[in-house]
């Protein structure tokens, strides 16, 4: 019971802050609401007994991605002025499309028999070391894992190359 109440609070806070992310007037506020929403997701991960991903969520999303976004927000403006339209002209169509998708998905999901089941047995405490071993096991996920590392490296190089300003006279 306590858990359910707790879940509802966290979910509500997350959803509200997520909604504020996309509607807030100030960009910086959007970014800060995003942090809160991400933190809520991290808490939900903890609820789901995925403590590793809860911590990684905080580390990667809040520690890195959110900071990056805040930087981008700061770097792409001349003043702190946030006046002017923040939504496109046909935003209500977008709203309708999103709502339609939401309704469609919920309806579709609700007919699935597994929709209302409760949680199964909890994870083995040794699942984290097992996960680590599986990530580098050639018979399991070594290749996706390595491809992901290459992807990260490529993104790193690409981001630096794109974002770094060319020197004067070098075109």
């Amino acid at each position: 019971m306590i858990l359910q109440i707790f879940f509802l609070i966290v979910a509500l806070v997350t959803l509200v802050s997520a909604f504020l992310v996309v509607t807030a007037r100030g960009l910086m506020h959007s970014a800060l609401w995003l942090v809160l929403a991400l933190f809520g997701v991290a808490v939900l991960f903890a609820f789901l007994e995925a403590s590793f991903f809860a911590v990684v969520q905080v580390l990667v999303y809040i520690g890195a991605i959110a900071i990056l976004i805040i930087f981008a927000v700061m770097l792409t403006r001349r003043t702190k002025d946030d006046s002017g339209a923040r939504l496109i002209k046909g935003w209500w169509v977008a709203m309708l499309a999103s709502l339609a998708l939401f309704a469609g998905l919920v309806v579709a999901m609700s007919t699935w028999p597994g929709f209302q089941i409760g949680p199964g047995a909890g994870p083995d405490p040794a699942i984290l070391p097992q996960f680590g071993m599986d990530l580098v096991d050639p018979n399991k996920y070594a290749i996706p894992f390595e491809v992901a590392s290459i992807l990260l490296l490529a993104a790193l190089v690409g981001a630096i190359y794109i974002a770094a300003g060319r020197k004067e006279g070098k075109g």
Partner: protein
Amino acid sequence: MPVFPSDPYGFLTQWFNNLLLHQGLPETTVRLISFAVGSLILVLGSLLFCLLLIWAERKIGGRVQDRLGPNRVGPYGIVQAVADMMKIFTKEFVTPAGVDKVVYNLAPVLSVAAVIMIWAVIPFTITFFGTDLNVGVLYIVAVGGLAEMGIVMAGWGSNNKFALLGAFRAVAQLISYEVPMVVALLLPVMLSGSMKLSEIVRSQDVWYIITAPVAAAIFFITSLAENGRAPFDLMEAESEIVAGFNVEYSGLKFGFFFVGDFLHAFTIALLFSVLFLGGWRGPAADQIPILGFFYLGIKTAIVYFFGLLVRFSLPRFRIDQMMNLNWKMLTPLSLGILIATALVDKGSANLLSSMAPTARLIVRSIILVLANVLVVWSFSDIFDVALGKRPRPVVALEPRPVARPEQPPTPTEGGTP
């Protein structure tokens, strides 16, 4: 059943839990209440402990700078910090015009909270810890990210260009130094085979500062930088950007930053002791847990003292020097030591498994120390270049002269007519 004199913490916890259970409360609720009470005590304790830290720092700073330091209030000026605290509490609660109020007021809280959250996973003795998270090391790094959020919020919320500049600098520095720090943290994790801090402490039959000295050094340097104190105090840099991100704060809000700063420095010393100096381990600490608390305290005090010495004796880095140090020296070095240690440790596992336990410890330590020395030695060239001691080697081909037939050859008896 823990005995009071040897394990006061365990004894008290048990007593408190039993008390509540006897009232007929369900076990979940009891655990929730005891967690809440425990964390309240931890937070209050650590905040109050700060008073002592402030006094100690001012006193030591005074000695280093050939002054006396605080000496008026109480014996040796020990109550000076309390007096300062009083003053801060009674100051006006100023919120400057034009600031983003929520962000502005949230930032100091966040920066203190980020530090105190680290304390949740630190094992003070064999029985005394907040929670023994199985991803403890990762948790520490993740919580470090929250501190960055605090700084960004302070800098942006203040609506002040110096504050914003300070925040920029701070975040650039913190994010950069997180890279070698995380890699250096991986060494204790790798050597102990666990991310649990208690497991890391328990596995330190030989302190990791001996088997992983380079990682310890990197962690020490990067944690100084994470803390943002001299010589890495570019984010505050009074002479350049007034006081950095906290320029618009005063009174209790500034006090939060202040406390956060001191507590952070101490927490880092604590972490260093736990990760590299064997934590609570020491003679008889297994049997009498309270001894471990004192051992940890002594180790932490020593590390903290070293941090202070560095702070008071080194001048501030330039920003390019700071970045050079990180990206050209610490990051490659940390990666190098990580790879070397991984290879050496795995490579010698077979050899070691056939030895007696004591011999295994000694041989393993020697091998790892040698690996460290080797890595540092092989990086010395890179460091020389990075520090500008030696010019970059320029590789170029020198032109080769070709035969010049117009030169008369040595007269020999003719060839073909």
